[in-house]
């Protein structure tokens, strides 16, 4: 079973089952972690903002221009900021570590 490691806003680590083909946002949301994802995953808001562990960052497809534009509506954007709805989970991302960004 593949999994991702999601760190919530209190710093608690959650190891959660990850289904390939789902977006990281969907994996987090379906495990009842507090992620708003207001637009439902169509890259039209920035409420699924996460920080990707730097060790994993290079293994992801880079953010599209559209995603980068939407990140303008996020808060405390860092080099490793991503919208989790725009990260499709794959088998080889087993263990991917992300931190939920502050709510905005």
């Amino acid at each position, binding site marked *: 079973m593949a999994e991702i490691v999601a760190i919530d806003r209190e710093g608690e680590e959650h190891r959660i089952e990850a289904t390939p083909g789902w977006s990281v946002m969907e994996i987090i949301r379906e495990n009842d972690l507090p992620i708003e994802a*207001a*637009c*439902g995953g*169509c890259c*039209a*808001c*920035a*409420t699924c903002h996460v920080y990707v562990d730097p060790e994993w960052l290079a293994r992801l497809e880079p953010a599209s221009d559209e995603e*980068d*534009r939407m*990140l*303008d*509506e996020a*808060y*405390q*954007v860092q*080099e490793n900021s991503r919208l989790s709805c725009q990260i499709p989970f794959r088998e080889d991302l087993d263990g991917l570590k992300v931190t939920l960004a*502050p*709510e*905005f």
Partner: protein
Amino acid sequence: MNDVAARTEPIRTDMVIVGAGPVGLFAVFEAGLLNMKCHLVDNLDRIGGQCAELYPDKPIYDIPAVPVCTGEGLTELLMNQIRPFEPTFHLSQQAERLERLEDRRWRLVTSTGTVLEAPVVVIAAGAGSFVPRRLPLPGAEAREGRSLFYAVRKMEDFRGKDLLIAGGGDSALDWTLNLQPVARRLALVHRRPDFRAAPDSVARMHELVEAGEVALHIGQISGLHGSDAELEGVTIKSPQGEALVPCDTLLAFYGLKMELGPLAGWGLELEKDLIKVDTATFETNLPGVFAIGDIITYPGKLKLILSGFHESALMSQKAFKYCFPDQKLVFRYTTSSTDLHKKLGVA
């Protein structure tokens, strides 16, 4: 009651709909077929709800019999469909208070003082009202309306100010261009060198920067300085480090977010910020107050536009009884009923 509300004559109608998104719009159609006139209230400055604000250009593929349309396109189609019923829109105002009148009708008062009275209120508020995203920094709340603003009401408010505008979209750029001649000094801060605003506005902003009329800072605001409600400057953080930028007024445009807002205090039975309804009628625990669309919950609920359409049809049947208690309701199809054809303006 505030001054504005006290001065405003109540508008009497059959149905007040809170939310002018797709589901609120289609409720006008279903209500109209049953002779109910509608007034709609929305905090956005335009019709369409999330379809207008979040995904005007994104494709939608699951509207029955419409293989593909955009959020904006769907809004236009619905507006065409409901035109015969002449709905009235009250935009840029939030549904603030809901009160029961002695004659059992409802009074809804908006944030700008519009007073609407009707036997039926329908809440089609989606994920809540769109409100400006506020800076989650210490001291931001105390400064709001004093030295920190999220919208421009009057340009004169900014005359002679040492103004900092934050954001990279159309609002931030438009106000940079419009307020530059008014402010004593104007700076713009955005987290990256690229702007998503209209290219023409961006080009004009860059001209002002070249001319030394506007200062441009790349980074994110990480701290507010000054005593109490006053602002003396902000810290701007970038990969290069932190810089203190002096200013006495901050105008921040970080887009809109959705929040439940005042309706949370109306006495509705809620479950995780969603309104509980009777699925036979889509009535809430308050008699005559209905709720449809994304804002409701019931076993099996799916947040789909098409579900909201269905909910609006069932809601209208019971709403009719509140509006016309002495009339019998006969169920008819638009295909065959000459009476409905007249209402639709096709007879």
